[in-house]
């Protein structure tokens, strides 16, 4: 059996959940006849029909508003953002309505809003953003950022089965670059559980999505220099798996947080505050961040390359931290 790509893993999750549960429906721009801008819904219209795979007008506000309404009627809609950059259009629907509905009216909103985010594919400032943190700041939502094909499938299944509104940030750089053998049967990966992807003892690198792979590459380089980095994949940003982070920092005593999102207000700041508050006495060095700078994602490929963190920059920061 060929290895399954991250993108195909997402398609399989949608397919299998639709087959398992008739209340799962899809809606989005060009997801039906065209099969989705990246192909995540390929073949699903033919299999499940136009009543469960809805092509919508180009209005993200309408897509999410409709999904919330459909969820009130007992459906479990999965809405696609053609690019996660456009989720900003749905800010009010998501933060003021979906996030508070269950809290305020006892009416759960079991929707998933999924789509591609992230840079590295020369998409420019409107097709490369990492807008997850706005929603991590919103109680009532869940925010998932898978880094592997296995997780993309397993976490999307958990997201669809979850009764809360879940924002599912796929990383488009990983869509066809990451592949692995997936188990044949049904499986799910629980939300809110981080994974230690590599064991180490000199420092902890916490990351997620595409930057997990850059971090693992950096850890590989560092191992050759005698620096053993432990690499933690957050998998879910909200709720944050505090225990896994703290356990690792208590073991290694040094923390580097890496994310592709811009620096100010990024998850690194939150994790730094968490560790300072809960594990201050275990720190043997400053908490260090490697992130994108506070600018939009540039269109120019050389500028984008300078904008994005990479293995070399992560390794350099880790070296300095290990000796600090």
């Amino acid at each position: 059996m060929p290895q399954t790509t991250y993108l195909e893993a997402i398609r399989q999750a949608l397919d299998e959940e639709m087959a398992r549960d008739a209340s799962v429906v899809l809606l989005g721009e060009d997801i039906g006849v065209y099969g989705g801008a990246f192909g995540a819904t390929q073949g699903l219209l033919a299999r499940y029909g136009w009543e469960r795979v809805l092509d919508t007008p180009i209005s993200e506000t309408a897509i999410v508003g409709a999904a919330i309404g459909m969820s009130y009627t007992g459906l479990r809609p999965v809405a696609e953002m053609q690019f996660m950059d456009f989720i900003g259009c749905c800010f009010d629907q998501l933060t003021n309505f979906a996030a508070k509905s269950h809290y305020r009216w006892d009416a759960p909103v079991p929707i998933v809003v999924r789509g591609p985010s992230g840079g590295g594919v020369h998409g420019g400032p409107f097709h490369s953003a990492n807008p997850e943190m706005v929603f991590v700041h919103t109680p009532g939502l869940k925010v998932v950022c898978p880094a592997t094909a296995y997780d993309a499938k397993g976490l999307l299944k958990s997201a669809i089965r979850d009764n809360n509104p879940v924002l599912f940030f796929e990383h488009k750089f990983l869509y066809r670059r990451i592949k692995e053998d997936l188990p044949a049967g049904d499986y799910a990966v629980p939300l809110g559980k981080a994974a230690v992807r590599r064991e180490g003892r000199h420092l902890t690198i916490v990351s997620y999505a595409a930057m997990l792979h850059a971090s693992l590459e950096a850890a590989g380089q560092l191992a050759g220099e005698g620096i053993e980095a432990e690499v933690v994949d957050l998998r879910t940003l909200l709720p944050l798996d505090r225990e896994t982070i703290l356990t690792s920092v208590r073991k290694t005593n040094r923390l580097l947080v890496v994310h592709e999102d811009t620096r100010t207000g990024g998850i690194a700041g939150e994790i730094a505050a968490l560790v300072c508050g809960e594990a201050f006495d275990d720190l043997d060095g400053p908490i260090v961040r490697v992130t994108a700078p506070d600018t939009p994602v540039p269109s120019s490929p050389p500028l984008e390359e300078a904008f994005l963190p990479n293995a070399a920059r992560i390794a350099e920061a880790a070296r300095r931290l290990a000796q600090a």
Partner: protein
Amino acid sequence: MAVNVVMPQMGESIFEGTVTKWLKKPGDKIERDEPLFEISTDKVDAEIPAPAAGVLKEIKVEAGQTVAVQTVVAIIEAAGSAAATGDAPVAPAPAAASDETPAALPGGKGKAAAAPAPVKAAAKVEAKPAPAAAPAIAAAPAAAASRPAASGDGQRIHSSPLVRRLARENNVDLAPLAGTGSGAGGRISKKDILSVISSGAARPAAAGTPVSAGPSAGAAAVPRERIYFGRYDVAPMSVMRQKIAEHMVASKRTSPHVYSIEEADMTRIAQLRARVKEEFEKRHETKLTFMPFFLSAAVEALRAFPVVNSSVDGNSLVMHREINLGIAVALEAGLIVPVVKGADEKNFLGLQRAVNDLAERARTKKLKPEEVQDSTFSITNPGSVGGLMGLAVINQPNVAILGIGAIQKRPVVVNDAIGIRSMVYLTLSYDHRAVDGAIAHQFMLKVKSSLENWEEEIL
């Protein structure tokens, strides 16, 4: 600003002091370094100068009371902007160093401007006798440990939260390590403090008194560049060599070593041994050496003076009921000390067998870990390679080690005539925290007497 005046630590082994007399009354004006009160400790009586100028606001410990070092004994309302920092306790500089406090620490000799900071910090306390010249705030270990973020002279010690926690938990004073860490800019890191802790510089919390951590075992007494000159080869130390270095430095730092030397007439034993050696070895199939005679004599003396068979834990003496004798065995590249357990319950043959067995297995690297642990007293035998006598370093946590020199025929006075006798020099290195000279010498005389008056049949 109020400045706390604390009971100073007048030497490594001093935990408390008695205020014998106040030289000022509350309300009196006082100059910095002016005598403020008198104290008496186990080691020294001293006049303590004021750490700051101002008005004596309050006396908290009256004359006649005994308190732990670092206890606040008075408060001075300092005049104007005193040099002292915050409300931090300020230990007055000792008026005089105790004569049993080593004035020169390793590397502390000479001017060595580039000598490591620990030496400088320690020298401030130990080596400067003149209070007027001493800094107002002594780098007293306890003061620094209770407020480890800053060194005694008010400078920030660069470490990390983890290091400060480990220092608290293990009672390590960070002040002497300031600026010597392996982190950026000399910051003390986890690695540095773990090496201090594992070197044995730290004491369990029960001791209640932080111990100043000296230079690590590998630290040079001179700047590194002065080590490399002319032609040389550099050989890395084996793990065993490093451990020996670590243990020796830790032992010298922990125990004030004092030495006692005795000489014993071994003629009687030498004759006995010559007479029965062949028969003994045939019958028991093991070599007959002089060692069991010495072990046996040591057991007798340890029974008579049990404090020599003890360990020091802070303010407690742990009196061991077992007598387990560590026997130093020289290896091709190092040294190991296997232990004859329960030596007081073994007869002569048992001691001989145990010594031969342990020595043989030490040389063939077949000792089990538990066979080099739990010694209560140790014996080393420089005589085995012909050494006349040797003054050994105490094998921690013992408080003494017996050194046996070479047995040589020497002219000695016997009944007012000169005779030729088989003589041996015996040395005892002992920890003055636990054992005083009188005991040590009586112990040695007991060893000597057991050897010279040997009665036991050994076949």
